[in-house]
């Protein structure tokens, strides 16, 4: 591991032996999101029927499934935007079904969500969008908030000139990056992404995957990612959850390829699935 951080004229002294001995897999196997027996339904239509999942600290979990299989609904249930009909969702040790008031807000500050098209506030500039959670939830001085916003903009790979722009002046990829910067404003422990690479060109999608991977590594994030993008799955996901027929099946890219369920087999062993797997390995 090479770090080019230099302190004045003296290089940053890093205990090399310790750095190397850091295990590649997350050292904390505890789960930050636990879903047990989740049932959701809309107007009699059952979307999830007894879904169980554990998201482990420090991993990148990709959720796939056919259109309309309830991937986004699962994400919305985890962040508390919709109320499940049955089941428990525990995020960072708190049951979100029973959490109310200030404790709920405190928990929400520990999770960041990136919606499909960024969901930036259209009347605010990018920098102001990032300032919103910082101003609302912290007592930092204004100058430090500006500085934090500037750093977050740079961390998600936006040029400094993007700070003063309005969302309608940005391209789709830049809007997603700006939305990511806002989701990261409060340094959340969990990052939930709803189709982060949808609508991006392959180069932009690959760059976004790489960005999420490096942020996840740098900030020690746990990432829960709803996606359709096989390349994302192969490139950055540690585990994959497949939502099929109202149930959830969790595995790795390799193990899921051995599945006999026809939808899962088609998904991972089709031409695109094989190509992504080859590229990923």
């Amino acid at each position, binding site marked *: *591991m090479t*770090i*080019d*951080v230099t*302190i*004045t*004229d*003296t290089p*940053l*002294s*890093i*205990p090399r032996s*310790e*750095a190397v001995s*850091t295990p590649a897999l997350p050292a904390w196997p505890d789960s930050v999101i636990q879903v047990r027996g989740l049932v959701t339904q809309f107007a009699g239509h059952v979307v999830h029927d007894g879904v169980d999942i554990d998201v482990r600290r420090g991993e990148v979990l990709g959720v796939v499934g056919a259109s309309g299989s309830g991937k986004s609904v699962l994400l919305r249930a985890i962040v508390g935007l919709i109320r499940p009909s049955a089941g428990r969702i525990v995020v960072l040790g708190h049951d979100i079904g029973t959490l109310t008031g200030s404790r709920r807000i405190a928990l929400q500050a520990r999770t960041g969500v990136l919606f499909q098209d960024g969901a930036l506030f*259209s*009347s605010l500039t990018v920098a102001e969008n990032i300032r919103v959670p910082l101003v609302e939830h*912290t*007592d*930092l*001085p204004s100058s*430090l908030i500006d*500085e*934090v916003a*500037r*750093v*977050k*903009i*740079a*961390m998600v790979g936006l040029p*400094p*000139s993007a*700070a*003063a722009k*309005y*969302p*309608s002046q940005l391209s789709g990829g830049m809007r997603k990056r700006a939305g990511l910067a806002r989701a*990261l404003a*409060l*340094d959340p422990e969990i990052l939930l992404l709803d189709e982060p690479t949808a609508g991006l060109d392959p180069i932009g999608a690959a760059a976004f995957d790489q960005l999420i991977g*490096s*942020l996840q*590594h*740098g*900030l*020690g994030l746990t990432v829960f990612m709803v996606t359709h993008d096989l390349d994302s799955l192969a490139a950055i996901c540690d585990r994959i959850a497949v939502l099929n027929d109202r149930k959830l099946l969790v595995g790795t890219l390799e193990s899921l390829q051995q599945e006999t369920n026809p939808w899962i087999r088609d998904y991972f062993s089709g031409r695109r699935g094989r190509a992504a797997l080859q590229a990923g390995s």
Partner: protein
Amino acid sequence: MTVEQGLLNVTSEEGTLVLAAAGSWTLTTAAALTRTLDAAPPPLPDDNGQPGRIRLDLGQLDALDTVGALLLRQFRDRSRDQNHPVLIINVRPEHIALIDAVWRAAEAEPVPPEPGRPLYEAVEAVGQASLKTARAAVELISFFGQVCTALLRVVMNPRRLRLTALVYHMDHTGLRCLPILGLLSFLIGVVLAYQGAEQLRRLGAEIYVVNLLGLSILREIGILITAIIVAGRSGSAFTAQIGTMKVNQEIDALRTLGLDPMELLVVPRVLALMLVMPLLTFYANMVALFGGAVMSYILLDISFHQFITQMRIPIDFWDATVAMIKAPVFALVIGMIGCYEGLLVSGSAESVGRRTTKSVVESIFLVIVLNAFFSVLFSTIHI
């Protein structure tokens, strides 16, 4: 020596300030951490008179996030600027990647704000605003032309008229407007009669309340109330509907399907408004006169029969019909501006709101200006 809340332990050696970070350097402690770092004493110079060094030990730091890493860098930069080199030691392996990422991001140069030239900017703003207004006026006139040609096309070829849409909009802008318009017109009639009665009673000329009501309502008030309510109710709805379609790219979709938004969206709305506005005006006039008659009966004991008989003295044919001449013109203006502003919506939901406000303000403004023109015109040609 402990400074505050166990975030930083300060000891001093010969020529070196030794700082040991502790606790968590995160968003929640950032305010205290800023104060703590600001309060750290400057290192004493060493034996040779060289400026003192700072050694910052991160070995006991429990938690670090981007804000903590950023404050660390700010402290390093500030101390270096004061000629106190900072040596950071014992960085924990789980913090290395974070510090690396944040520090690299913090190196990005902020965009310097434009140097301010107040006078120049003020002059430029005035010029830009003038140009924008002129351009908007030209565009509005050209849109007026487009609406006229589209209307003409429909008149020449009535099969192109979307009858369902026309009836739908007549229902929404006309029929559903009746309750609110009736209530407000009635109240205006009541108020006019009340105020007129107060003044005219002093002269013993109570009966002339009827003349006052008849002339003012039929010529001016009825149509103005109608136009203002229609602008606020239907003009704004036109802008919001078309604007939302624009944001949704539905207008683009129409064009690619070979459908003319002008014919499909604008003509039915404008035509519906032009058809129902005279009817609404007539209705508003009658209800306002009824309100005035009720009030006259209560206050001045003028019976309905007397009211109607008296009314026929000052009111001629033109007094009763000028409002019907104005109504389609006002309807055209309100409908046209509502659709025009809707088609100008771009990008965001905020734009829909801004355009809707603009559409209402502009159409009421134009209605009142046009009304003044009509007054002058009618008095010149003696009708």
